[in-house]
């Protein structure tokens, strides 16, 4: 039996501005290693909110989140940062890169922070990642000087640099044209099939979702099907 890498237990999330509003209701699910899971649901049903909680960036919720067998409850900012750095790779809808740094530096950044390998090793890993995503020719360019599709591939390379336990994506193709969306989807499928990378991707694209191992469907803050 494959071990659980992610587990949630009755997660409730409220927003209090402007009025108290429960956005997540008793969300409980789990994910096994090497699983490729997609999350679908109408806009505003709480997908992003859930993902921010799962990625440990949002700590204001009720319930329990267990990553790699460890509860995230009561962990300090420092400890959560470490978890994000080591175990989670995040790909955003908008291509968030550090515009002052080169593509290579962007990819290396989480690796340098983790400091598990020397800077040289991190650099060669980063170049390998860029190569496998077909963008190694951009390594020296400034992150602000490349196209949207390329940026998203760089973001994926960055998410992969520390060999994370899980890659999370919040509509990673939501801001890309059709051709680039296909490229990004292909990359995810390839990662799942070839390297057994665990993936949790929020998407609107039913084609894409139907090709994943499991679909989690959300409606109004609840998981209605998984």
């Amino acid at each position, binding site marked *: 039996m494959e071990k659980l890498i992610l587990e949630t237990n009755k997660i409730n999330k409220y927003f209090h501005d402007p009025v108290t509003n429960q956005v997540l209701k008793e969300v409980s699910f789990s994910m096994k290693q090497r699983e490729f899971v997609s999350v679908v649901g109408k806009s505003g049903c709480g997908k*992003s909110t859930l993902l*921010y909680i799962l*990625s440990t*960036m*949002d700590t204001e919720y009720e319930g329990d989140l267990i990553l790699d067998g460890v509860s995230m409850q009561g962990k300090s*900012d*420092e400890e959560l*940062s*470490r978890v*994000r*750095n*080591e175990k989670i790779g*995040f790909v*955003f*809808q*908008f291509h*968030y*890169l*550090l*515009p*002052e*740094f080169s593509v290579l*530096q962007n990819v290396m*950044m*989480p690796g*340098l*922070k*983790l*400091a598990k390998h020397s800077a040289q090793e991190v650099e060669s890993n980063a170049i390998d990642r860029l190569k496998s995503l077909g963008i190694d020719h951009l390594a020296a360019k400034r992150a602000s000087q490349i196209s949207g599709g390329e940026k998203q591939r760089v973001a994926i390379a*960055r998410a992969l640099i*520390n060999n994370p336990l899980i890659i999370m994506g919040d509509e990673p193709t939501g801001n890309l044209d059709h051709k680039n969306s296909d490229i990004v989807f292909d990359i995810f499928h390839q990662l799942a099939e070839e390297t057994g990378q665990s993936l949790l991707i929020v998407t609107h694209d039913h084609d894409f979702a139907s090709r994943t191992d499991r679909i989690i469907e959300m409606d109004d803050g609840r998981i209605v099907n998984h």
Partner: protein
Amino acid sequence: MQWHLIFNISKTLLLARLRQSVIAAVGVTFGITMFITLVSFMTGLNKLLDGLILNRTPHIRLYNEIKPSENQPVNLSLDYADHINMIRSVKPKERPLEIYNSQAIMRSLKEDDRVLGVAPKITAQVFFNVGAIDLNGIINGIDVLVEDQLFYFGDYVTKGNLRDLQTVNNSIILGKGAAEKMLVDIGDVIQVTTARGERLSLKVVGIFQLGIADVDNVQSYASIQTTQKLLGESNNYITDIHIKLKNLDLAPAMAPEYKKLYGTDAIDLQTFNAQFETGTSIRNIITYAVSITLLIVAGFGIYNILNMMIYEKMDSIAILKATGFSGKDVKWIFISISLIIGISGGTFGLIFGYIFSSIINQIPFETAALPTVKTFPINFNVFYYLIGIVFALITTYVAGFFPAKKASQVDPVEIIRGK
């Protein structure tokens, strides 16, 4: 903490905003330059002005003052001990100005390790006879070598040679004002009459200028021997003992000790010249106040640029946090930016401060009052450069701290969701 990584991120963010960063650093440079220049100049001036008083003033002076006895006989009598004794019109007793046993006192003083040196002195009231007019004057009998060594008298002899006072018999060094009044110059002979009517001819071997008109118009110097001869006194006769200490601050405590020990009057520099410290501390206060003001202004410059940078870099901060940098890491990234600005601005400040004070040190500054000074005085002291850089670091750290704290508290979810 991975300082190397944090420093590199700071450097990159800083270089991306090079122009604003340079402007912020120039603010610091300006503040530190002003501080170094001001403090070097002000303390230079302080030293000069203090020297004007300190060089020529003994730390403790032993002498006999003409004054009424403190204990009148009736107070000493046991019969009247429990009475209230009122005595009117007490007059000073005749008491010789001479210090008894001066040789023994001087020997004992020289053995005290707190004492740097001891100079004997005789003060004699005289008249300088110029034609039909008699001018009031004072002749100070000095031990020429000791006086020069302890009180740098040679520096103030602007014409002639101090050593001649010792080698030429019956010689005198006149104050500049007195010499001008008498229309005499080196080599001329003047007539002197003492208060008791004795007359002597003295040869002028030098002219001194302290820069204090009261002194230059009235005072003059002769050797101890010449003065003793003039007064018709024995060669033990001394009216003052001037003491220079190794540590000036001990003087107020030591004066009463000597007074009791030697049975003379004793006065310390601090009591004698109470205003001496006031000017110094006021000039110091001005210097530090101006410099701190400038640095606070520079600090606001840094505070502004950092706030602006953080506002612009919200996305970057969110990404850093999302990919594993902690709030503390982010805080130190921005504090480092501030410190880099502070250190580079401060270092240039020290360099420019040094250059400016060197330039000031070359500007001619000649005044009749200060014969030994040719240019503006500057006190080059490494200590002020240390204070300067510490100032720069503290200001930039404080200016950087609050924006950095704000950056560390940025909620990445809010930024990422906000797009």
